[in-house]
């Protein structure tokens, strides 16, 4: 498990940032504890695997017939599942319970259960067999494989969520700050912005967007909704460094404290506080604990952001200068960068022949060059 900051208690959805407040440029530095918390309590998809042992998992019963009963199953059951879903585009097959096999098309619970029932089914029976579609939908979203209930899906971000990230970028906020504001990993924020740019361009060019796939996938997976809870995932997770995979034995005096910093030093790494994606949030928390007033905190953060932006800009300029040297000729497949050179200094070196194997030549050097 990667070391991570864990919430001491799970917050409720009342912790949602108000819309008006979330547009403040001072976020996320004014907020109490959103940085630490990430996920809704229902979807702890990244927790330790709790798969049942193989012998306890539900299995399909083997039946006689062609291809181990598959063709029979398709005739008897499969056909019934291939029908339009009553709600939310959730495929009907996700309501499938492996045992007992469903005998009829699942009817959603409601007042018209009796009217929709198959001929030859009593009202009582119909009511008993009706499916609570809300429950099925929810269950199916979080574990899409009916026979592998322990498989949990990590939520995806909704269309609105992505739009919000893009809008924040348009409002000149850095990727780092957006990431901290909506609790979304840096890489994900960057990817969303890149894809959004393409999407906007396509809309401008009036190219058709293929949203069907997105609709279907969103129907089948848990989706982080911006409107109800504008947080997506843990942003404080540390990637496992390969050097931490090996055990290391170290003698430490009992009287000496041994903390994360010392551990990192022993492994030859940077401390976790520095390596983590949002190390600046630690400073913010420290300032909060020290009782620094909000104005100073904001000032310090602004300065840090300014500094970071300048560094990035300088780095980009250096790179552009380096790459832009000389002319560029573009062909069908490649760009050729033409650079001026000096004939005296250019070129791969022609070696000097080693004569140490020649007769009469001493292999041991007798003078220092």
């Amino acid at each position, binding site marked *: 498990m990667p070391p991570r900051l864990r919430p001491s208690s799970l917050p409720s959805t009342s912790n949602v940032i108000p819309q008006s407040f979330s547009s403040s440029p001072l976020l996320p530095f004014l907020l109490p504890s959103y940085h630490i918390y990430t996920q809704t309590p229902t979807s702890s998809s990244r927790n330790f695997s709790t798969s049942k042992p193989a012998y306890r998992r539900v299995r399909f019963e083997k039946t006689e017939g062609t291809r181990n009963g598959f063709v029979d199953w398709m005739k008897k059951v499969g056909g019934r599942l291939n029908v339009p879903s009553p709600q939310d585009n959730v495929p009907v097959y996700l309501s499938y319970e492996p045992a007992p096999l469903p005998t009829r098309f699942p009817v959603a619970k409601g007042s018209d259960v009796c009217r929709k029932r198959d001929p030859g089914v009593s009202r009582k029976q119909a009511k008993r067999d009706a499916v609570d579609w809300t429950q099925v939908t929810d269950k199916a979203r979080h574990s899409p494989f009916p026979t592998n209930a322990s498989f949990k899906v990590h939520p995806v971000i909704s269309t609105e969520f992505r739009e919000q990230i893009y809008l924040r970028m348009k409002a000149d906020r850095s990727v780092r700050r957006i990431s901290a504001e909506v609790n979304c990993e840096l890489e994900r924020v960057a990817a969303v912005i890149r894809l959004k740019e393409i999407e906007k361009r396509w809309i401008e060019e009036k190219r058709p967007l293929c949203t069907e796939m997105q609709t279907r996938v969103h129907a089948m997976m848990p989706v982080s909704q911006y409107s109800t809870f504008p947080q997506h995932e843990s942003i404080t997770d540390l990637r496992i460094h390969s050097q931490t995979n090996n055990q290391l034995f170290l003698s430490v005096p009992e009287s000496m404290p041994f903390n994360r910093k010392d551990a990192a030093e022993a492994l030859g790494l940077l401390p976790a506080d520095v390596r983590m994606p949002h190390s600046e949030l630690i400073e913010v928390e420290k300032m909060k604990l020290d009782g620094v007033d909000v104005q100073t905190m904001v000032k310090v953060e602004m300065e840090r952001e300014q500094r970071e932006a300048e560094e990035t800009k300088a780095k980009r300029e250096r*790179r552009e200068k380096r*790459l832009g040297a000389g*002319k*560029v*000729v*573009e*062909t*069908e*497949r*490649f*760009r*050729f*960068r*033409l*650079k*001026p*050179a*000096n*004939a005296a200094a*250019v*070129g*791969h070196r*022609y070696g000097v022949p080693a004569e140490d194997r020649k007769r009469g030549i001493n292999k041991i050097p007798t003078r220092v060059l």
Partner: protein
Amino acid sequence: MVVRLRLARFGARNRPLYNIVVSQARTARNSKPMEVIGTYDPIPKPAPDGEGKPFKDIQLDVTRAKYWLGVGAQPSDPVWRLFAMFGLIEPQWKIVRIPAQQEDRALYEKVQKVKIIPDGGPKTTSTPKPTPTS
């Protein structure tokens, strides 16, 4: 014996790197040349900004190249191609230059057999059709 401008292969297996050299035509490819005037890396590197075409680097001492061409050194076909990109000789094959580079415009127009119309000029220059004479 002819003096040639040609490539000498360096690098390792499957990773060629070339020196652009001036040497006697009949000497071995990698023998010590009269002069090394540049390098050519034929393995494309991915575009630095992650989008666009991959690039290849060519280094060349243009002054020396001009001198050797002037005294009658014969470029090999690949070197001809590289020199054409620098605008030292007429290209034997079509190359496309980025029109934004103003100093290369004349050559671009010559190679592409087109006329670059600067911004603000007429959009299209349609040649009048010859009227059939009866």
